[in-house]
């Protein structure tokens, strides 16, 4: 029985008051769908104003709310080379001063009415959006007119936004997802502006003239689209628009058409080496077609099957079946000039190669095999089912309509979406997949720990390696080159170290160390107290050459017991450790039994051996360090970066300033230039925590 009949039969049963349903009627399988309710898109009317501004109004009077979206063909793709971020900055500044209003007056006005007004720029378009209650619509138009037509770009607001952008960028650029996305766009878009992204240098290079020129040439009524959705009529919207945009003329500067890029001849893999990364971020993809391509419906269905959600092939295999990842997805991105397809996932380092191979297999499969009818129908059902949820509110409607118009989709795209998706065939899905996904000529980006993954992925495709800044690396660069530090053993002598710990200038604790002579070498005992959070004693046993023999640590970190008991013998380190994970703060308990190369130090031994390093301007050492608490051997680098005066007690002492990179938080050390080379001060890079020697 078809689902329609079943639904009708159930309804009949209820209406005719048939026998009361008992628990025996409780279905043991998910009930079938009822007939699809038609979801008509609200009617919309279009009009062009005398100044060339296209107006589109979608009426819906269910709630007294109106959503406005004013868009221009002026996105990141028109940022001049070296000034990436211009469109985005200009958008952010439009509401920070316009006409006779300051930023504060604008926010007072719109927020005073309980509404919102904001602007942003994507790759292709800049949009100003506002949502208000109907009674405030005239105010919204008045403000919209001001910010679009006569923004003032005050210098103080420019600098404030620049500072905020730079802070945000600083964080974003360390995130592997951002690194992967940028590398992917560079790989597929070649010389086209879609490949470029804002960087600190480009954001710093943007001037007020750039912003003013951007506005003057690109934010004009000709080429712009104004969409008004909600409790409004065309006549009213037109009247308000005519008044708000009075005197505004001109056409937005043309956007250079997308050039033909050479087709990628074969798959290439770019490995972005992020030492110590516990996960790999993978992106695989290609260019597709311009936004107006009619294959968009087939592509949407193909994507739903492949990687469109929790019921998709990528999710089901990489996550549900193999537990390699929390998520694996794919997507077709629409761009005016040339769109792209990508499949992405984030996996544990150890399974990078397996996950990548499975991903490639799925990309191959979607183009080489017809999707079975059941799977195809499920994917289509998912898309058509979600349609009414995507047009519930005025701002959802405004965005859907604006998108379709701006990207040049068919005039009836939004209204006929469901029907067209329903009509997609398995052949069309396979054809668009073959044409656009192309796993044998794709760009693969892997951001992860090259030292651990390079050997296992190098046969998947030809590999080139870079660091996160883009500097080319060789496979040899991936392996840490650590050497045994040449110590000046004669400089080691019995001594006492005493440091006061200050947090943000206020005393927060102390650290004391004692270096003692023992029959077969040295012993360093360090006591640390940091408020109530850290109470720790560490004892290092070293042999006569300063090499590690044993380390014991006892104490509490944030109220939890943290202990280390590791001994070194015959080229191995063995023992147990429990210490807080630097990423999560949670106590990790581990058993250690690992090979250690000669010259491997403990993470506590640098401090003990400071006087024995051969300190000099420009000195640099790279050595392996076993952080027993984490069970990890990593290369650390200690490099002298300069000389400066340091306050110790009431006096000033000349010191070498050195940076120690490798520990979870990089450190800065100051060591007296005069012998004995004593550690005078330790600071944690970028944080208000300092250890200063007490004389």
């Amino acid at each position, binding site marked *: 029985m078809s689902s329609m009949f079943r639904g009708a039969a159930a309804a009949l049963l209820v209406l005719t008051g048939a026998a009361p349903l008992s628990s025996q009627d409780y279905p043991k399988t998910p009930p079938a769908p009822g007939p699809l309710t038609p979801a008509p898109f609200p009617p919309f009317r279009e009009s062009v104003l005398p100044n060339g501004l296209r107006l589109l109004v979608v009426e819906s009077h269910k709630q007294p709310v109106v959503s406005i979206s004013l868009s221009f063909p002026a996105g990141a793709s028109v940022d001049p080379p070296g000034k990436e971020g211009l469109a985005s900055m200009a958008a952010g500044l439009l509401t920070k001063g316009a006409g006779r209003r300051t930023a504060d007056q604008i926010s007072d006005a719109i927020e005073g009415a309980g509404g919102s007004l904001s602007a942003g720029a994507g790759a292709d378009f800049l949009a100003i959006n506002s949502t208000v209650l109907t009674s405030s619509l005239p105010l919204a138009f008045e403000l919209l007119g001001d910010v679009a037509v006569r923004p003032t770009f005050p210098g103080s607001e420019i600098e404030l936004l620049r500072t905020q952008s730079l802070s945000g960028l600083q964080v974003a650029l360390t995130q592997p997802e951002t690194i992967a996305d940028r590398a992917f766009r560079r790989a597929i878009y070649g010389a086209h502006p879609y490949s470029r992204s804002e960087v600190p240098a480009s954001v710093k290079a943007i001037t007020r003239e750039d912003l003013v020129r951007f506005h003057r040439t690109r934010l004009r009524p000709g080429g712009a689209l104004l969409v008004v959705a909600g409790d409004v009529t065309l006549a009213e919207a037109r009247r308000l628009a005519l008044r708000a945009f009075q005197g505004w003329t001109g056409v937005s500067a043309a956007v250079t058409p997308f050039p033909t890029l050479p087709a990628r001849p074969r798959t290439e893999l770019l490995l972005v080496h992020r030492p110590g990364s516990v996960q790999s971020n993978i992106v695989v993809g290609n260019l597709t077609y311009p936004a107006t391509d009619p294959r968009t419906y087939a592509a949407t269905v193909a994507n739903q099957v492949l990687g469109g959600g929790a019921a998709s092939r990528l999710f089901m295999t990489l996550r549900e079946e193999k537990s390699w990842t929390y998520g694996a997805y794919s997507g077709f991105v629409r761009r005016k000039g040339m769109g792209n397809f990508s499949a992405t996932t984030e996996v544990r380092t150890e399974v990078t190669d397996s996950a990548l191979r499975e991903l490639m297999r799925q990309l191959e499969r979607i183009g080489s095999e017809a999707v079975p009818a059941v799977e195809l129908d499920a994917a289509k059902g998912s898309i058509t089912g979600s349609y009414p949820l995507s047009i519930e509110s005025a701002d959802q409607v405004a965005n859907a309509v604006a998108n379709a118009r701006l990207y040049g989709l068919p005039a009836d795209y939004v209204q006929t979406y469901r029907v067209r998706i329903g009509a997609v065939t398995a052949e069309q899905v396979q054809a668009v997949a073959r044409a656009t996904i192309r796993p044998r000529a794709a760009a693969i980006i892997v951001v992860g720990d090259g030292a651990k993954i390079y050997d296992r992925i190098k046969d998947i495709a030809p590999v080139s390696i870079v660091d996160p800044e883009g500097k080319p690396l060789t496979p040899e660069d991936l392996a840490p080159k650590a050497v045994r530090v040449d110590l000046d053993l004669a400089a080691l002598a019995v001594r006492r170290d005493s440091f006061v710990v200050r947090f943000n200038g206020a005393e927060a604790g102390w650290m004391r160390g004692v270096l003692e002579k023992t029959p077969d070498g040295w012993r360093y005992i360090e006591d640390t107290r940091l408020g109530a959070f850290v109470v720790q004693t560490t004892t290092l046993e070293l042999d006569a050459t300063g090499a590690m023999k044993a380390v014991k640590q006892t104490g509490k970190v944030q109220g939890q017991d943290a202990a280390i008991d590791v001994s070194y013998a015959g080229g191995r380190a063995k023992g147990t450790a429990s210490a807080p994970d630097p990423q999560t703060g949670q106590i990790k308990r581990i058993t250690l039994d690992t090979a250690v190369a000669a010259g491997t130090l403990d993470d506590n031994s640098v401090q003990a051996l400071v006087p024995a390093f051969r300190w000099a301007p420009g000195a640099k050492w790279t050595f392996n360090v076993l952080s027993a608490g984490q069970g990890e051997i990593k290369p650390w680098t200690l490099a002298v970066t300069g000389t400066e005066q340091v306050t110790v007690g009431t006096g000033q002492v000349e010191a070498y300033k050195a940076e120690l990179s490798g520990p979870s*938080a990089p450190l800065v050390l100051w060591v007296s230039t005069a012998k004995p080379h004593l550690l005078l001060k330790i600071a944690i890079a970028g944080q208000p925590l300092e250890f200063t020697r007490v004389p």
Partner: protein
Amino acid sequence: MDSRRRLASLVGLAGILAATAVATAQEPARIAFETYQLPNGLTVILAPDRTTQVVAVDVWYDVGSRNEARGRTGFAHLFEHMMFQGSANVKKAEHFQLIERAGGNMNGSTNEDRTNYYEALPSNRLNLGLWLEADRMRSLAITDSNFANQREAVKEERRLRVDNQPYAGALFEGVYALADSTGCFPYAHSIIGSMDDLNAAKTPDVKAFFDLYYAPNNATLTVVGDFDTPATKALIQQYFGDIPRAPEAPPVECRSAFGTGAIRKVWPDPKASLPGVVLAYRVPEYRSNDMPVIELLATILGQGESSRINRTVVREKKLAQGAFVFANLFGPRRGPGNILALAISNTGVSPDSLEAGMAAEFARLVQEGVTEAELTKAKNAYRTQLITQQQQALNKAEALQGASMFLGDPEAVNTNWKRFLAVTVADVKRVAALYLRPENSLVLLITPGGTP
């Protein structure tokens, strides 16, 4: 144009000068609903709307972290995970696949007072949403392996959300220092619970918790949107009617309203790269007459570009790169709540300076009160949010549930907004003086990095 619109446009023009025009009487539309109870105690609220093609199914269980005893924290939240692991007729993880295939979206959440589970679906899949909720209410699969898996998932979630996100620890755990752990333990511990308690829990404990709290007499089912009422009532009877009721759950003990006295703590945060400050004050339970005042006060102090904290602390003095103020961040509760501010330092600003800047703004508000313009703005923001949210079926369902649990009657969804609009400048001054006192406060100084 009708006279109301004409008046609106006149007022709109005047508003350009006054910047805070009192919007004309734009009231939220009435939500029509009916409510009834099944013999097994399940409360049902139905709010049909044939003008949409969406339907929302929303179940609230009257269980949250407030129902947890010492040594047993984290159960309610753990349950939320277990509820997606399959039931008698639904395979593990099948729940979200079924909803996704239907084109719907779904989720669940736990807070101190309640656990909710909801689906928004195209209206021809209403039966699927109801059936999935019924199947897990009647027959959740609780096995040793399921429980162990979900315990791991909860730990992983804790790592990702709380431990891995900067500033989250202070919000998810630190703020509970405000509450009185001896007299009101239910509201004095975090929702995610202690890993030690979860590690010590056994499968029979978990099963007992489920049997007691996940029962029809402890639940409210709300359906909003495009459905036929008689047919839906019949479906609800068919799916939920024979689920047996459970014994009444024990009452929640909360003897003293708050802890007392100012508290000040340093909160190390390994994930934060810049210092932050949380400033929080104890406030009464959600149904108190003072709560609408407190919510409007939070808007004026710290929501939006024109808020006081944003103007002075962020823009003028540049102490913070961002800050907000919220009342009851995790939602209303039947027990004591809080109003809290979170600010993140700009580079080079010490947590002490930031705290001083924030405290000064709070003190200024206590001293001077707020202006009529600010109060009107907050009311307009509240009204706009209410109206825009009501465009979506799921939001209406949640509003009905909240009114039922926290205000005692779903009809409050149609009247509660009037309490907000009735607040006066004098009310704000009184309430600020009463609650925003240093001796009623908690200060958390969030320090970047844990140990050196």
